[in-house]
């Protein structure tokens, strides 16, 4: 079987996982058709396969518990991780991957907490992908890490299609985004393992109903737990830590 070279010189990272394409053909009147093998020609399945590879590297090879945080810019992802670093995870060796379209603001905040940080700027891309995460992991001494937090780009659409291989995906929203934010981004909530409604204390001031947001999570993504936090006061941080702790115990049991 011949493997044609990809025709584009400027290959996006996604293409590097290209696998040999198996085809079979059959006559069809004047034309010919080639049916492509499903699993191998599926772009998003290739992404998921890469994410499984990252998971393998983190969970199996290095025994690192990985948590991805997603949600809009300003929802409080960084602040939540900061509270976790100061409190429940203070005794652990933690690494953070800060994904942003540009800048090092989040990475600088994390560095102030004395943890290992990789800043990943995606340029014009709207999401982290497993390949970029995999490359960022090279900057850590993974064997020394207990926990890795991965903060995705502030975007509520694209990351839903691009899992990264973390043990848990947390979507963080806040009432300032409007209390219909969950209904507007159903696929993201369906792609995550837990939802965190942050900044609950400002809900009244912005006329948002936190209960409605929580109900929407249940409607859109049944069985997905919802937590209520305020990263500025530390409210709910213990609940979040407990949720992650349970997930970690689960993972340890699963991986033996």
């Amino acid at each position, binding site marked *: 079987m011949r493997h*044609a070279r990809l025709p584009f010189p400027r290959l996006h990272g996604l293409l590097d996982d290209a696998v040999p394409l198996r085809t079979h053909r059959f006559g069809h009147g004047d034309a*010919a058709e080639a049916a*492509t093998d499903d699993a191998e*020609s599926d*772009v*998003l399945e290739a992404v998921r396969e890469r994410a499984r590879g990252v998971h393998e590297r983190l969970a199996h090879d290095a025994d690192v518990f990985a948590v991805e945080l997603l949600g809009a810019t300003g929802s409080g992802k960084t602040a939540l991780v900061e509270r976790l670093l100061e409190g429940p995870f203070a005794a652990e060796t933690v690494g953070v991957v800060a994904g942003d379209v540009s800048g090092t603001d989040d990475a600088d905040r994390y560095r102030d907490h004395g943890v290992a940080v990789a800043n990943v700027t995606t340029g014009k891309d709207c999401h982290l992908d497993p390949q970029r995460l995999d490359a960022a992991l090279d900057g850590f001494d993974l064997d020394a890490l207990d926990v890795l937090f991965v903060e995705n780009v502030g975007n509520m659409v*694209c990351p839903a*299609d691009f899992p990264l291989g973390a043990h848990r995906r947390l979507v963080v929203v806040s009432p300032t985004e409007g209390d219909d934010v969950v209904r507007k981004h159903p696929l993201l909530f369906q792609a995550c393992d837990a939802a965190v409604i942050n900044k609950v204390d400002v809900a009244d001031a912005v006329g948002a109903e936190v209960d409605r947001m929580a109900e929407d999570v249940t409607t859109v993504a049944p069985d997905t737990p919802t937590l209520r936090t305020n990263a500025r006061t530390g409210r709910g941080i213990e609940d979040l830590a407990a949720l992650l702790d349970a997930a970690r115990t689960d993972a340890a049991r699963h991986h033996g």
Partner: protein
Amino acid sequence: MHELTVARRLVDRAVATARDHDADRIDALTVRIGAATHVVPDQIAFCIETIAEGTPAEDATVRFERVPARGECACGWAGELDTLADTVAGAPDRRCPECGGGVTLTAGTECGLTRIETPDPRDTHP
């Protein structure tokens, strides 16, 4: 938003497949898109047309197969999922119609090239 990335991959696949079959032109390519993805067919078609310029796929008709979301539940139910009402994205309703619990997706996250159509090589290479 990531249609360009996806489209580039699809065109690469189509061109490589055509080459494997000694075809120097692609008349049509078919892309399968699951209902539980954020990939928008119109945008994919536009991106494919742009990217395909100068390749054997530049005049290809782009066709889509929409894959409905399907799921299965711990209670034993399995089937096609309804679309969630009142959502902009037309996301699948992940509630089990039998027990109300959450269902696991078994289909609907696809995004790939399923087939290409090329001129018959007996005509193009007599």
